[in-house]
């Protein structure tokens, strides 16, 4: 009796490489706005979040040069009122990012939108404030990188 077995070696799937690619860099922008498109003093949309509660602004962040953010990263968003030197919000997200392989983000770690909440403030109390948003992305081996933008809070 003879048995015939045929086997195929599995192909390697090409994965994009985001680890240790070039210098560390980060970019933050309002959700739906391309990175670097927001000039200082431009309107920064804020409003009531879809699920209710404190006002918020949605942002997206991309980064490169950090290690294995697909296994874990922390992204801290800090909002400061520039004129009054007042802290308006400080939120840290623990998440896993995705290594993009298409478009302008190819080769960078990205994720979905992140919400900066302004706890303790109502909509009227935020209108027209000039704020600095700082996003700091950190990997699990001690590396981190930040980016900031400045805009004027304007209702969505």
């Amino acid at each position, binding site marked *: 009796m003879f048995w015939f077995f045929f086997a195929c070696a*599995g192909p390697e799937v090409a994965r994009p490489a985001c680890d240790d690619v070039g210098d560390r860099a980060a970019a933050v922008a309002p959700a739906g706005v391309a990175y670097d498109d927001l000039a200082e003093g431009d309107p920064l949309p804020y409003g009531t979040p879809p699920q209710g509660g404190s006002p918020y602004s949605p942002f997206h962040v991309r980064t490169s040069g950090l290690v294995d953010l697909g296994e874990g990263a922390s992204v801290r968003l800090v909002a400061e009122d520039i004129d009054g030197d007042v802290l308006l919000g400080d939120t840290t997200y623990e998440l896993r990012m995705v290594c993009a392989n298409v478009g302008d983000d190819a080769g960078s770690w990205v994720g979905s939108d992140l919400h900066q909440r302004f706890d303790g403030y109502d909509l009227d109390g935020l209108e027209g404030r000039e704020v600095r948003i700082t996003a700091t992305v950190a990997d699990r081996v001690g590396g981190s990188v930040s980016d900031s933008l400045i805009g004027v809070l304007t209702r969505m």
Partner: protein
Amino acid sequence: MRTFSLSLAALALLAPDVALACGGMFCDAAAPVDQAAERIFFFFEPDTDDDGLGLLTTEVQISYVGESAGFAWVVPVPAEPDIFLSNDAMFTAVANNTTPVYALVTQATGSLQLGCATENALSGDFDSAEDGGNGVSVVSSEAVGPYDTVTLQAENADRLVTWLQDEGYAVPDGLELSLAPYVAAGQYFVALKLQSDKESGDIAPIGMTYPAAAASIPIQLTAIAAVDDMPIEVFVYGPARAVPDNYLHVQINDAAINWYDGADNYRDVVGNAVDEAGGQAFATDFSGTAAGSVLSLPSLDLDQMRGQPAPTSWLETIVFSGITASTQLTNLMLELVPPPDGVDPLDFLSCPTCYDVDSADWDPQVATDRFEADVLDVMEGQQDRMEAAPWLTRLFTTMDAAEMTADPVFVFNRDVEQEISATRTATSVERQSAFSGEALSRTLVLADARSIVVPDASDFDALTTLASPAALVIEDYSSKGEPEAVADFTEAAAADAEAFNAGCSDTAAVGVPVLLLAAGILRRRRTG
């Protein structure tokens, strides 16, 4: 003797509604995926007064096993809600109607086959609205079904937990951390506990209606009681297709589905795809017209039932009416007309008039009022909500507690492809023996036109090498415009399939050593 089996009725509900259309092919596999999951329904009525807020109704199935005194449920909401009792009939019926079905259609050559193609036819006693000086305000309280409910606001999470524990809500220490973001955001909290005379078997789905801009799951609070890879099904009724706003979306790789083994790994594939997307992503199971209600709600003569002197006849009127079965209906019937001692409840309900029951305390007026209020009115409310919404989207994910760090929000997007069928089809092109009908060769043709040659016609395990990546496309949706692709492996997967086919066609290099190995095994067996 007429019989009725509630358990069989429930089983029937678990089968997908499949319509068969005869053609020149036959379907040898049309497999619905496993359906156990946490389920949450949203019904969104758009804003009508330009305040940016619509009206959101949320209905949730609550899974709980344990002592009744140990049950407590807390959920944050953006505004004071109207709370009402729900019914699991809708959860089961809608889930079954929208469950992904994987249909492998065999297209035979070499011998004639006839068959069909398949298509899915597809009591609180709180002081109201006051802060007792402890930082917790009781906004309202009421009894809803088997629950005592209370709606609260709190200044800080520690005080909220302390208040709940003092009032007999069995919330665990450590809940403060999970509640803190919601307290800081000024949310309201709805807390439930079972009334003292109720048991854990009385736990029923609960519904809430409140103003909101969109649907959201307070998943950060869920983390405290989550299991690994917790499956979550979200059903969103609204004006258009619903998409995740702050979570990513995945299109799964159909090559990862084990088509030749009942397609029973769909959930694992989605789970892997979500992991590849960072753990915070959804797949769309179905998107299409809501097509009205899926509940069977027959017209019953309630006046006649209110005058029915025999409890078993009253019961029989219900069980043979064709009404959609539910746990709540079964429990109510058994409460109002208990079976005789020693009789299995489901046997009793299958033929109530086959048994004699004590009718001394029977009050058909009271029983019919309860049936109307606790079952009929609840189901009619569900039916009205389903019929009012033009579009239904079903989304699915699996999540670990560590991934529950941001609450997913779902928005409506009219710009993207609206219809996503629950039926996914592939074709197995087979050259068959004219004598035995046995497949001599098989090629799996996926919906995206990838052709994959099955090694040796039956070496289906080899196909698992094409199962990675599980996410063919990872994309980012918002309420407007097309999604933005984050990672796209479409071309890579097509190239993988071609490489796989090329490798399989070269059998000499791989087949000989395996043949020698097989011969060695045979020799050892003979001499052993």
